[in-house]
């Protein structure tokens, strides 16, 4: 009896193994997976990326797909938590994912990128910007600026356009994203002789009250506050600064994007906030106009930078796939090696930049632009002047 039971268990195990192998490909679809926060405090990013990706996938599928294959797109929620992100990744691997577009936020992406490296899956993150994401992983690429680029880019922009401002920095020192940008910003600001008069920090636990940091910045006469943080604490900072009658120029990076679509947020608070971003929804080129129109029709709001990042990711994958001349019968590993080689050879034009190229380190090269929030819309800084 026992032997029979053991035999049955063995049969079940073998069957399970075969089923999971058999999951990989019926040959006619290219399975692209995505991971990002659909819920949680960073939900706006994940939702925007997912929506942007879907628009690109639908366009490509309507035009005959990639290499004769239709794209199947599966986006999993990680709530901006590293453990959930790894679980979501495992789920996508069971589903038979060929290529990963993700993950959206930095801290989870650092965990997932380690798995991506050992499993040899080609991955392109739309927005996880830390260098730790790509460090020592030859098959992990970024479509967004890396943190050093955002920090130095911001400092360069401020030095070129408002060099005489007294700068305060408020950043979150228990977050790799925020700390990373602050470090490179401070280094570049020193090199450019910018005047940093105050630096204040907060952590996840103290992200509700900024009155002390703002009072200190105000009494140091800061007239520009650099906020390398996500939009949720930024919204609290804006409202507390208003109750204090303190109105410096607020300067954010890509994490500030999304503040305008926060539920119940008073958008007048964000008037005049500057954001360094590679995407501006009022750009006049056909690609942007077409994307903004489609996005508004489908989701009822103006797309932010993350939506554009997601859209570009899918097209960048397509460009690399076609450059490498990949075929249907390639395994996940072969696909990965081919794409790693090809993405470094292409020059890609997308919503978030012209002539984007990728380096051996996995970083992207493109030009940042500054946008200003006016009447609840992003417009480019030059247009606002």
């Amino acid at each position, binding site marked *: 009896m026992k032997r029979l039971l053991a035999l049955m268990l063995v049969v079940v195990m073998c069957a399970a193994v075969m089923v999971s192998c058999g999951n990989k490909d019926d040959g006619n679809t290219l399975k692209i997976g995505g991971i990002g926060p659909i*819920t*949680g*405090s960073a*939900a*706006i990013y994940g939702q925007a990326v997912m929506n942007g990706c879907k628009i690109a996938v639908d366009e490509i599928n309507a035009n005959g797909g990639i290499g004769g294959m239709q794209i199947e797109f599966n986006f999993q929620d990680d*709530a901006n938590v590293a453990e959930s992100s790894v679980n979501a990744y495992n789920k996508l691997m069971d589903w038979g994912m060929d290529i990963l577009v993700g993950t959206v936020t930095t801290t989870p992406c650092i965990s997932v990128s380690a798995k991506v490296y050992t499993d040899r899956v080609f991955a392109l993150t739309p927005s996880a910007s830390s260098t730790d994401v790509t460090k020592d992983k030859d098959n992990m690429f970024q479509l967004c600026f890396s943190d050093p680029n955002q920090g130095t880019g911001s400092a360069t922009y401020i030095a070129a356009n408002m060099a005489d401002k007294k700068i305060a920095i408020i950043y979150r*020192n228990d977050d790799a994203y925020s700390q990373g940008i602050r470090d490179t910003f401070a280094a570049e600001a020193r090199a450019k002789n910018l005047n940093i008069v105050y630096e*204040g*920090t*907060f*952590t996840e*636990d*103290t992200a*509700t*009250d900024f*009155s*002390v*940091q703002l*009072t*200190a910045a105000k*009494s140091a006469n800061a007239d520009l506050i650099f906020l390398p943080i996500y939009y*949720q604490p930024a*919204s*609290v900072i804006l*409202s507390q600064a208003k*109750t*204090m*009658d303190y109105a410096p120029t607020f300067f954010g990076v890509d994490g500030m994007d999304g503040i305008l679509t*926060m*539920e*119940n*947020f*008073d958008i007048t608070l964000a008037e005049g906030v500057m954001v360094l971003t590679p995407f501006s929804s009022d750009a006049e080129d056909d690609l942007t106009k077409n994307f903004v129109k489609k996005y508004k029709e489908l989701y009822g709001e103006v797309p932010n930078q993350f939506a554009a990042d997601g859209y570009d990711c899918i097209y960048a994958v397509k460009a690399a796939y076609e450059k490498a001349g990949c075929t249907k019968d390639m395994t996940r590993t072969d696909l990965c090696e081919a794409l790693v080689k090809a993405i470094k050879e292409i020059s890609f034009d997308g919503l978030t930049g012209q002539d984007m190229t990728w380096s051996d380190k996995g970083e992207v090269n493109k030009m940042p632009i500054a946008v200003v929030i006016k009447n609840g819309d992003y417009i480019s800084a030059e247009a606002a002047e």
Partner: protein
Amino acid sequence: MLEFLSYLISGISLGSVYAIIALGYTMVYGIAKMLNFAHGDVIMVGGYVSLLAMTSLGLPTWAAILLAMVVCTVLGVIIEGLAYKPLRSAPSLAVLITAIGVSYFLQNSALLIWGANPKVYSPIIEGTFKLFDGKLPISYISMLTVSVCIVIMIGLTIFTSKSKMGKAMRACSEDKAAAQLMGINVNKTISLTFAIGSALAAIAGVLLCSSYPTLMPTTGSMPGIKAFTAAVFGGIGSIPGAFLGGILLGIIESLAKAYISTQLANTVVFAVLIIVLLVRPAGLLGKYVPEKV
């Protein structure tokens, strides 16, 4: 000087929020002798209920607060009846773990019902009162929080020392068995304590969210822990102690942020707590009761 005053005011407004939460903690602890870790999450529920009452139902502010109080009271009594009452004679560790379980239950239910997207709370009163030509702004909401806190503190003190029900509560807190022998319905008394504690949590929720206007399912947990610290600091079980502990904790946190380092603020707060507990193990205003053998 003006800066110092303004840091002090930030500290007092932060402290008054801790104090109002600590009052609920300390009352339940003082009478039921249990740490209700779900208190912070009842506050979060109070915040959501009042926000929805104001935005979706369009109720006036006073009605929204009243509704939040009613919902939280009912919730508190249900929690007590289902989760804590069956464990009345169980070891206190079991009740503690149950309380943590209830806390997670409430957070995750809120996640399911209201989603995890942070909501921006509309404060019940806006505007600031300005001193010295507008150089020293004090928001009306912090003034309101401090006054409400003092009113509740005095109210609770009078209630527990003068009213019949209050006396029954104190009797239960000293010796449950003896209180029962004197004809006090211990179960009912403890349920009433939870009802009052939860109604206070609703008020605390409205004030917390008005001062720091983002609302998430985890909104209550960190202030809850800080308020618990404040209650221990002031002497857990002591009602004026909770008030004093909360205000002091807020001021220390704010001054440490301003003059020592924003990175070390929490370290300083807890270092002060450890020193106070080393010198006065029962907290600032707590009574030291030797263990009866």
